[in-house]
């Protein structure tokens, strides 16, 4: 697959035109046929995976279609993703660091969504899998920022219960029709939705993380965390050359 990160995901199809995956293409077509306008976009990593983006109103329908006619009755997970770039970066800046390095005034980065595109900040993820066909699909659905709610998958997958409770508490997304929306992990008085990107990792604020030294100044890298091209900096790992002269190599041959 392409390592060119500047290209948008939609153009990936052109790059990988040489590889084809007829099974997953057929699946994508099946989704498009069944859902009609509800199926917005799809993405295929040939030989590996399939993404389908559906409209919010087709969310349950897509799940039912996948679990029924397509035989993907094994619920892998239901989750969500917040595409907003984190305003806090890697949360390395404890107050002590600001004193030493000065504060990095961060520019808000552009919001870029992943495979199969996306228009909004929050996206739902559903992964289902067919145990007979050994093929899975990730279904995405955009959630408008002013109405973070989507229908529950409980009528289709009884096992979605805990997953959706987790989404509710971690992202603040309301699952319409879920009978038991209460905190799964967090204490009942907890405020905020920790998995949102604008929710700060408070532990990093109070105490600098000792692991900070590992990544800031590596001896060989001139400008760490800057814009070094990945390919130029390639080195052999130290252990690589040892492989041949270990004593077990003889036994293994």
């Amino acid at each position, binding site marked *: 697959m392409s390592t060119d990160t500047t290209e948008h995901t939609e153009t990936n199809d052109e790059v990988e035109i040489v590889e084809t995956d007829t099974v997953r293409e057929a699946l994508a077509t099946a989704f498009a046929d069944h859902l009609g306008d509800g199926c917005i976009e799809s993405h295929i990593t040939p030989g590996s995976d399939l993404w389908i983006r559906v409209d919010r109103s087709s969310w349950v329908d897509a799940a039912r279609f996948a679990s029924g006619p397509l035989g993907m009755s094994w619920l892998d997970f239901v989750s969500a*993703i917040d595409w907003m770039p984190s305003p806090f970066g890697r949360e390395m800046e404890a107050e002590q660091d600001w004193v030493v390095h000065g504060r990095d005034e961060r520019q808000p980065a552009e919001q870029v969504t*992943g*495979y199969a595109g996306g228009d909004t900040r929050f996206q739902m993820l559903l992964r289902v899998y067919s145990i007979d066909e050994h093929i899975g699909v990730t279904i995405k659905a955009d959630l408008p920022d002013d109405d973070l709610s989507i229908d529950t998958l409980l009528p289709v997958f009884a096992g979605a219960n805990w997953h959706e409770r987790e989404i509710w508490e971690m992202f603040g997304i309301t699952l319409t029709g879920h009978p038991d929306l209460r905190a799964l992990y967090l204490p009942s008085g907890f405020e905020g939705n*920790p998995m949102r990107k604008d929710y700060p990792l408070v532990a990093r604020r109070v105490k600098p993380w000792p692991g900070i030294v590992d990544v800031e100044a590596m001896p060989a890298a001139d400008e760490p965390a800057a814009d070094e091209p990945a390919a130029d900096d390639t080195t052999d790992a130290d252990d690589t050359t040892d*492989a041949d002269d270990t004593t077990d190599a003889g036994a293994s041959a």
Partner: protein
Amino acid sequence: MTAELTLPADALANQDLANNAQLRYIASQAADSRINVELETEGMTLNIGPQHPATHGTLRIVAKLDGEQVIEAQPIMGYMHRGYEKLTEVRTYPQVTTLINRIDWVGSFANEVPFILAAEELMDVEAPPRAQWIRTALFEMGRIANIMLFLGDMAVQLGGITAVFYAFRDREFVLNQIESATGGRFHPNFNRIGGIKDDLPAGWIEETKSAMVKVREFCDEMEDLVVGNEIFQSRCRGVGVIPAELAKEYGLSGANLRGSGVDWDLRRDEPSPLAWSEIDWKVWTHPDGDSFSRYWVRLQETREASLMVEKLLDNLPAGPIMAKVPRIIKVPEGESYVQTENPLGAMGYYVVSKGELTPFRVKIRTASFSNMSITPWLLEGVYVPDIATILASLYFILGDIDR
């Protein structure tokens, strides 16, 4: 119910009707129901956990009981929630492996593998064959160490204390081998993107093979001591039956699904760079779907895994153990989902990268989370002792639920 039945009881006063045998029967039923109304008891709410021997960890189960019978049971977790999904967003890729080691802490090596594979897939890097084979061998040894704990623990949950001592004794042989190869008994942190940290130490292969023989001896011992025991069977057979279709709907995986007769193993069924497809082995299933079948499947899997390790070590290819990777690892933009058959079941990492040092989002799909989500359904109507049986047979690790 009482209202319906008091009417014939009143009619009993009429001597003519009293001769009617059917009415007499109804009247006696009505009398019984009156007694039952008097004796009607309120349900008792029993808090099992957060600290309770049956929950090995800090799981809490709120069970509403009618005598010894469970009317409703709700697991409550989060006592060990460590927010790994959030933490991974501020850790570099190599640092994440240290973290995710602690998810299923008794099978830690296996935790690292799917994440590393997902990152490798995004970077288009493939580890050299020798690294993949060593990974697979250590993966299976982690499985053995993990499931051996289960084999003893399930017996101790049912009151047979001796088995767990045997399990801990023999598990040590495997842990010692994992330690001598990786340096860590529980948290190897041995995987690197593009390979593994070190090659195997001298003499390790022979020692491991002899450890695998001991593992099989242990399995035979468990078969005699636990599986063959009539009391164990009567406690497990027919207890906690999970139908296959429901198991799929709840996303159950691993031995819990194979114990329900679903012949599905990610090691065999999904293409993986690891060496599972290179050797001969068998996927064990059991059609019953009860607690006994889950125990039985895990026992067979342990034996199978020990054979797999021997085969892997016999055919270990020579060569390097690290691919060429950048010193500072930046994973290109993309999304990748890799799932492997971990000791507890299917574990997957949905990695979203924005081309930076850290993942943008990592959704960690853990086996125990889905496996345990069926418990409210499963515990309904069972007896209190069966709670221990069912929880033990589903085999969860708290860190794997709470993440």
